[in-house]
C-alpha cells in the first residue's frame, strides 16, 4: 500500500519506535562525525578538501532506513553522510579522510571517493552528474538478472543543470530501471544560488515531467517524510514500475567545501534553517512518540563515544604504507602497462 508523505501524528503509526530510534541515531552519527571531520581539518589532520552534510542528515538517514540489505548507494563528493548511513564505521571514514592505514580505501580515494562495497556503497563520485548514469547501469544489471535490489543515487541541486543528469533520467525512464534519484536541494549549487542559474523553481522536480515521472518535492529535513517517500519509491522500483526522482529540500549549515565560509548567504537565512535543524525536528518527534529525554541523551552519549574512540584510533593509526601505491591499477593487482 502506498504510504502517505507528511509528519506523523498517530502514536502507533507506520514507522514505529525501533525505526525512529535507528533514524535518530544515524542522523546523530552523521552530525558528530561531520563535526569531528571539521575539527580535524582545522587541526591539519585532514588535508585536501571535504564537503560536509551538516544540516542535511535527515535525507541520508531516512533513505538508508528505508533501504534493504543489497540495495546500492551511489553518492557524490558530499558522501560522508550516505556512507555512514549504510553502516560503514566512523573510524574507517575518518581514517580515509586522514590518509591513514585504517581508512576505508587506505587513503587511495580520500574524502570525495568513499566506497564500501560490502555495505552496498558503490562509490562516491566527484564529477557532477556521472554517477546518475552509473547507477542506471547497476539498476540495469538488477533488471537483467531479475534481482530485487534497487540503486539509489544522491546528488545536489547543481547536478540538475549538467547533461549527464538528463541523459540518465531519460535512460532510466525508457528502460524502466529500478533506480531512485534523490536530489538534495540545499539551495546553492556551490556558491551561487541555484535559483539564479536554473530555468525552473524546483531544479529536479520541475524537470520530472520531461521524463514522464511524477513531480515529487519533499521536506528533506524531516527523516520520517524522507523515509515514507523512499519506501514508496522502492516499492515502485521493485514492482517493475521504473525510476523515481525525488527533490528533498534542505540546507547545509556550512559552506560548499572547506574553502568556503559561505559569506554569500543572506543574513538570517542560516538561523531560520537552524530552527528547522533535522536533529532538532527529530528529537521533538521522538518525544512526541514517547521517547524520553534520558533515552535520547543516552543515544547522544553513545554516539559521541563512538566518534571519540574512532578519532583516537585514527590518530594512533599509522599512515598508509607506500606498498599500496602501485597496487590495483589493473585487475592483476599491479600497474604494469608493458612487458
Amino acid at each position, binding site marked *: 500500500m502506498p504510504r502517505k508523505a507528511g509528519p506523523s501524528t498517530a502514536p502507533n503509526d507506520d514507522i514505529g519506535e525501533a525505526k525512529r530510534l535507528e533514524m535518530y541515531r544515524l542522523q546523530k552519527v552523521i552530525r558528530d562525525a561531520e563535526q569531528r571531520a571539521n575539527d580535524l581539518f582545522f587541526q591539519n589532520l585532514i588535508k585536501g578538501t571535504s564537503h560536509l552534510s551538516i544540516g542535511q542528515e535527515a535525507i541520508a538517514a531516512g533513505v538508508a532506513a528505508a533501504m534493504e540489505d543489497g540495495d546500492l548507494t551511489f553518492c557524490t563528493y558530499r558522501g560522508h553522510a550516505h556512507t555512514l548511513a549504510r553502516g560503514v564505521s566512523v573510524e574507517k571514514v575518518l581514517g580515509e579522510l586522514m590518509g591513514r592505514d585504517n581508512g576505508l580505501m587506505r587513503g587511495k580515494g580520500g574524502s570525495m571517493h568513499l566506497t564500501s562495497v560490502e555495505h552496498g556503497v*558503490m562509490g562516491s563520485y566527484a564529477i557532477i552528474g556521472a*554517477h546518475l548514469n552509473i547507477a542506471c547501469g547497476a539498476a540495469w544489471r538488477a533488471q537483467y538478472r531479475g534481482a530485487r535490489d534497487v540503486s539509489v543515487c544522491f546528488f545536489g541541486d547543481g547536478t540538475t543543470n549538467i547533461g549527464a543528469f538528463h541523459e540518465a533520467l531519460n535512460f532510466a525512464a525508457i528502460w524502466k530501471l529500478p533506480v531512485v534519484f534523490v536530489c538534495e536541494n540545499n539551495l546553492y549549487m556551490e556558491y551561487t544560488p541555484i535559483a539564479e542559474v536554473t530555468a525552473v523553481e524546483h531544479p529536479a522536480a520541475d524537470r520530472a515531467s520531461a521524463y514522464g515521472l511524477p513531480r515529487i518535492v519533499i521536506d528533506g529535513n524531516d527523516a520520517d517524510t524522507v523515509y515514507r517517500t523512499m519506501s514508496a519509491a522502492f516499492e515502485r522500483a521493485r514492482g517493475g514500475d521504473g525510476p523515481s526522482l525525488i527533490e528533498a529540500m534542505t540546507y547545509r549549515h556550512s559552506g560548499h567545501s572547506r574553502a568556503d565560509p559561505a559569506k554569500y548567504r543572506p543574513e538570517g537565512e542560516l538561523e531560520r534553517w537552524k530552527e528547522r535543524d533535522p536533529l532538532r525536528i527529530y528529537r521533538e518527534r521522538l518525544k512526541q512518540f514517547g521517547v524520553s529525554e534520558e533515552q535520547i541523551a543516552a543515544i547522544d552519549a553513545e554516539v559521541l563515544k563512538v566518534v571519540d574512540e574512532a578519532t583516537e584510533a585514527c590518530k594512533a593509526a599509522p599512515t598508509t604504507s607506500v606498498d599500496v601505491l602501485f597496487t*590495483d591499477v589493473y585487475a592483476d593487482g599491479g600497474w604494469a602497462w608493458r*612487458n
Partner: protein
Amino acid sequence: MAELTYRDAVARGIAQEMARDPDVVFLGEDVAKAGGVFKATVGLLEQFGPLRVRDTPISEQAILGAAMGAAMTGLKPIAEIMFADFLAVCYDYVANEIPKARYMTNGQVGCPLVIRFGGGGGLRFGAQHSQSVENWCMQFPGLKVVSPSSPVDVVGLMAAAVRDPDPVMFMEHKALYAIKGEVPDGEIVDTLGTAKILRPGTDCSLIALGLMVHRALAAAERLQSEFGINAEVVDVRSLVPLDTQTILGSVARTNRMFTVEENPRLLGWGAEIVSIVADEAFYDLDAPPVRITAPHIPLPAADELEDLVIPSVDRVVDTVRRSLSA
C-alpha cells in the same frame, strides 16, 4: 576456415562471447534493430534477444555510465560508441570514472567492460568523424587499448577483451570494415598485450597499427621489389599493455625503426615507442628512429586533401628509402 569481412568478424566475435557467457550484454546507438551504422552487429539482436542486445538513445554518457555500473556489479558489457570522435562527449567516463574506479577504491570495484568504436580516416567524413584517437585512450592508467588490423584479430582480440577483467578500449578501423580475411572455424581467443610480426625483414622495422599495418605491408613489398630493402612489419595490435619485447627484438635485428601512425603528430603512440627504443635500444640503432604520422592538422574531407594527410604507401616507401640511403 571461412573468409570473413572485418565487419562480420565484429559480430562473430561478440556472438562468440555472448553465446559463452550470459553476463555479456551489448548496448549502443542503432546497434540492435539496425545492426549498427557500419553493419558490424547484424544478427546479434535476432540471436540473443532484446534483453541482451539493446538500442540506446543518442546519449553517450548514458551508454558508458550504464556499461560501467553494470560492469561494477557483475555483468560484462560491450558498449558501442559509434564514431571514435564521440568519445569526446562521454570522456568523463573514459578519463575519470572507468579507469580509476579500481585504484581509488583500493581494489573493491572493477570494470570488466569493452568500449568498441569505429575510428580512423580515409572515408571522406571530415575532421569530426575520422580521427585516430589512440592517444585519447592510452593516457589513463587502468585502461587497456587494442586495435585489430584483420578479421581474425577482430574475433580473437574481441574475445580476449571481453574476458579481460579490466576495461578495454577496442578500436576498429572504419576503412577496414570491408576487407576480407581467413578466419578459422570454432572458438578463437587471442591475447592482449601481444604484437605480431606480419612480415619478417632484415633492413628496417615498420611499426604500425590498424589501417597503417596494411599500408606498411604494401610499402614493404614495394621497398623489396623496387629498392631491394627488406622491411620487417610489426603490427602493434595492443597499445596497452604494450608488447615492447617484440618491438625491441625487431629493432635489435634490423637496427632501423619507423613508426607508421595515422594520428596527428603530437603525442601519437609512436612517440612513446620511440622513447622506449631510445632508452633501451639506443645502441641497436644505426640511425635515429623516424615517425611517419599525419601532420598536426585536423583531417580535411575532400579526397585529394585527406589522402595527403594520412600516411600513404608512397609516403612510407619514400621516407624509408630516403632515410636508408642517407
